[in-house]
């Protein structure tokens, strides 16, 4: 039952289906989310270091910093990146593990349309240092992972990765997050990071953290671009 009184009205006004329960798992707020908030919040924008002139209206339903349409941005942490042995790497035979990561998208409303899905991977520092720029770098591949036990699905992207010191970011096709009946309100990805040049294989990497920055547009709240005022 919706909480009584002002909380119910506020819940409705904020378009939230269910009232927050208990206390959230304490976790640090990702810097990118603070940065986006400060850019978007008019009071913050006027008071913050990058003082926007009062007249400079924030474009509704557009995330300036990411350059995409959107009125909802979510930072979704992966549920348990499970490593699994992969087939031995071609040249070295030393198997580098692959990972399956799962993102819970149950909070995304059916009506929302994804405009950006950016994967962010952090690798364990020790390995990152071992794979310095002198090494042949890496190749990251991301595929849709079928259900547990099923083989990997279509490859969504492949890209070269020079070093692992900084977070590795890769933009998925937003359609990968599209709602459809078969996707049980989650996104399962199969990740593989293979040494880029067999000649100088680096040590295997260890995935420390995976997250997804998902920007969506709720068409019920974002009218098509308003006609210029007469």
């Amino acid at each position: 039952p919706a909480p009584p009184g002002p909380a119910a009205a506020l819940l409705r006004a904020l378009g939230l289906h269910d009232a927050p329960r208990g206390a959230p798992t304490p976790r640090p707020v990702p810097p990118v989310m603070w940065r986006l908030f400060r850019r978007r919040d008019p009071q913050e924008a006027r008071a913050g270091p990058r003082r926007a002139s009062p007249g400079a209206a924030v474009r509704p339903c557009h995330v300036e910093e990411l350059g995409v349409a959107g009125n909802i941005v979510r930072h979704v942490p992966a549920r348990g990146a499970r490593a699994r042995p992969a087939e031995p790497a071609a040249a070295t035979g030393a198997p580098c593990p692959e990972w399956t990561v799962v993102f819970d998208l149950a909070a995304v409303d059916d009506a929302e349309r994804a405009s950006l899905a950016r994967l962010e991977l952090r690798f364990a520092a020790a390995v990152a240092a071992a794979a310095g720029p002198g090494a042949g770098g890496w190749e990251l591949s991301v595929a849709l992972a079928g259900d547990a036990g099923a083989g990997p699905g279509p490859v969504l992207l492949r890209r070269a990765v020079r070093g692992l010191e900084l977070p590795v970011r890769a933009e998925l096709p937003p359609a990968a997050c599209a709602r459809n009946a078969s996707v049980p309100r989650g996104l399962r990805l199969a990740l593989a990071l293979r040494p880029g040049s067999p000649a100088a294989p680096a040590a295997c990497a260890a995935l420390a953290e995976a997250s997804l920055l998902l920007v969506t547009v709720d068409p019920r709240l974002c009218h098509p671009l308003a006609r210029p005022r007469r």
Partner: protein
Amino acid sequence: GAEAALPGGACRARRLYVSFRDVGWHRWVIAPRGFLANYCQGRCALPAPGAPPALNHAVLRALVPGAGPPCCVPARLSPISVLFFDNSDNVVLRHYEDMVVDECGCR
């Protein structure tokens, strides 16, 4: 926390502060702690005594036979953004249009 809406007085924006702590959401809402939503209240008499002449649709509307007085409503609104944890422990930034009343008017 709202400014008491005393009867009478001209149409203007009155203070209404929405505090997330008051509804027990302060552990979920990361920022802001609350926001000034404000609201419009007051009499709309045309022409408003002592005010500059209103030359807009409200005057035209008042000419319609049997028309009631114009209403005291928001004339300019601003958006807000809210950063919060949702029930799946995601960090969410949502942008809401027309959440803050900056100016009221008789319309």
